[in-house]
């Protein structure tokens, strides 16, 4: 290595150092601390701090409340992300065709996305009101007990989440649609492609990469969803809408079982990381990620 190369290398390290230190300080250190916490029984109100190893994880393995939370989290994520992608794409296609009032439509879309989720939750609390809520009025005055019925509460939350985050997907897709050159469509028309064929063999393949990015973002967000269920149902009725995040929150901040709550946090982290790794591999295949 020449002196010049060595100097370059040092300079490079110096430039990377602030970022590396920031990541280490803000992400790595707290992350490792939570991992360490999860191996302890730590409950300040009882003055308990002792090392328990993997005991919390073993307990979680046989904890019906935990497995229920895992199931709720996965159902919520799968259903809401799937609906968001399909509806978002449909809305983006509709926007592209829309001649009048497109700006208004865009603003309205953004409004739903821009509302803080707690506000959205409060909004849906009233929409779902069994006797006075708009949803039941639109369904012909039927008295559906949206948030109080164990079989309706989770679907109700999924609809609220779709309403809130579908615009994000729609805007991403819409932006992509705008960048597709008109020549491509002209060529398709010349080749005699009908509307359906244009959609399936031209538009969709071109939108696909951006959909994958949206899928990644939305899945990771949905796995960590908290505000909606926390405000709307508090995890009820009968725990049917208690996600892993809500369970972790209750253990950590309400019952102060810091070690046990940290163990749930670690499990959430592991699930999110596993899914993110899967997606990244898929994106790499698409040539979208390094």
């Amino acid at each position, binding site marked *: 290595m020449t002196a010049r190369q060595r100097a370059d290398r040092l300079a490079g390290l110096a430039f990377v150092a602030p970022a590396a230190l920031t990541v280490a300080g803000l992400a790595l250190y707290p992350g490792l601390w939570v991992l360490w916490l999860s191996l302890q029984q730590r409950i300040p109100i*009882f003055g308990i701090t002792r090392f328990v190893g993997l005991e919390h994880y073993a307990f979680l393995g046989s904890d019906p409340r935990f497995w229920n939370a895992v199931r709720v989290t996965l159902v919520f994520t799968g259903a809401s992300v799937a609906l968001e992608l399909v509806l978002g794409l449909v809305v983006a296609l509709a926007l592209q065709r829309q001649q009048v009032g497109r700006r208004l439509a865009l603003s309205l879309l953004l409004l739903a996305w821009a509302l803080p989720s707690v506000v959205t939750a409060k909004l849906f609390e009233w929409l779902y009101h069994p*006797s006075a809520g708009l949803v039941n009025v639109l369904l012909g005055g039927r008295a559906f007990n949206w948030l*109080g019925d164990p079989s309706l509460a989770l679907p109700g939350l999924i609809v609220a989440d779709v309403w809130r985050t579908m615009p994000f997907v729609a805007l991403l897709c819409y932006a992509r649609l705008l960048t597709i050159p008109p020549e491509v469509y002209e060529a398709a028309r010349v080749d005699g492609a009908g509307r359906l064929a244009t959609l399936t063999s031209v538009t969709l393949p071109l939108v696909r990469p951006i959909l994958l990015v949206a899928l990644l973002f939305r899945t990771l967000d949905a796995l960590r969803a908290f505000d909606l269920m926390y405000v709307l149902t*508090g995890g009820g*009725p009968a725990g049917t809408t208690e996600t892993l995040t809500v369970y972790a929150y209750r253990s950590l*901040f309400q019952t102060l079982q810091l070690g046990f709550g940290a163990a749930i946090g670690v499990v959430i982290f592991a699930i999110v990381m596993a899914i993110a790794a899967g997606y990244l591999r898929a994106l790499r295949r698409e040539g979208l990620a390094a």
Partner: protein
Amino acid sequence: MGGPAPATGVVRRRAALLLLALALAGCAERRDGPAPVTLVFKHAKILGPSDPMPGLLRDFERRHPGVTVRSEPLTWTSDEQHQFYVINLDGASPTFDVLMLDVIWVPEFAQAGWLLDLSPWVTREELAPHFPAAVEAATWGGRVWGLPWNMNVGVVYYRADLLAKYGLHPPTTWEALAEQTARIRAGEGDRRLDGVLWQGKQYEGLVCNVLEHFWGSGTALLGPDARVLPDPSRAEAALTFMRGLVDRGLSPGWVTAGDEELTRRPFGDGRAVFLRSWPYALDLFEQAGSPVRGRVGIAALPGHAGGATGAGATGGFHLAVNRRSRHAEAAVALVRYLAGESAERALTAAGVALYPTRMALYHDPEIVRARPSMPRFHDLMLAARPRPVTPYYLMLSTTVQPEFSAALVGVKTPSRALADARRRLEYMLGGLR
């Protein structure tokens, strides 16, 4: 600067003398009175027509020269307040001195060693003017950890006009209440008129509702010997009755998702006969333009036939001192001032939706003139009971919430839900005591 500049040596000597004088003055002041201190008071914003807090704090500062109080707002959501306190108090943070805290957290924070023991300052006599239920919640392990500041109690609102129309008196048992509900609804023949509304959502409010039914049945969640669910058969009967209110159509199905506001509104619109809620609702029922203005009566929580006299659950906020506070004396003085007669009177007179903990204020002519229902609330608060006063309360409550909810929505039978709650609680608390 005008005039000839003195030699630097002189300046330095003068500066040293000045510093010495200042230091001596500081010492002297400490000997004569308290050194200047700034207290930080964490509390939720007081909602109401006017905020009396700034005036009260300035008055306190006038009475305690050298003490400045800075008030820092908390959110109104109980869970967020709890989270804030847990993070800061566990981190041994001295960034605030006086805190407003939910009654159910007092033993928990005390056990955690986060609160200053107020016993050396606050005698039993000083606590006597406060409602017994509030005092009970402020003490733990024979020591005083907070001063009662404002109070809440579960009450039953009824439509006085409807009861009068059918010649009925406010019920003293749940069974009579159910009968009256059925009779009035049959007589009115109005599909839009609901029967009895209460809070059945899976949250803290549900625990209050269930506890009131437990007490009315003559049992409790935590027995006197700290045993969990000491009388399962009575508890089961209480839960079965609650579930029955929904099954029999006396309560609309949606009460299983109802919280305070969701249940308060339909009653306020004149679309329910009974409502179990808190005192704040009355101010809203009686305000100008309310459809039920002048038609609402207040009753005590009923008991159950063959059970016990009913009692409302209490809530409210206490004032306490951070054990890490560097200004304990001044902080205790602030707590005693704010929980004192004149401050509680000022808060009540300002028309805020909080009710005082001092019993005498409920019969004060001036206050009663502005709020005629005060004497009625006095009786209800006097008969009320606190939720279990234990450091494990939140663990207890969050564990039973899903189980109670499961019993109400019919996912589990009441006996199964209670058995599950009991098993879980015994496992969690058993390993800790």
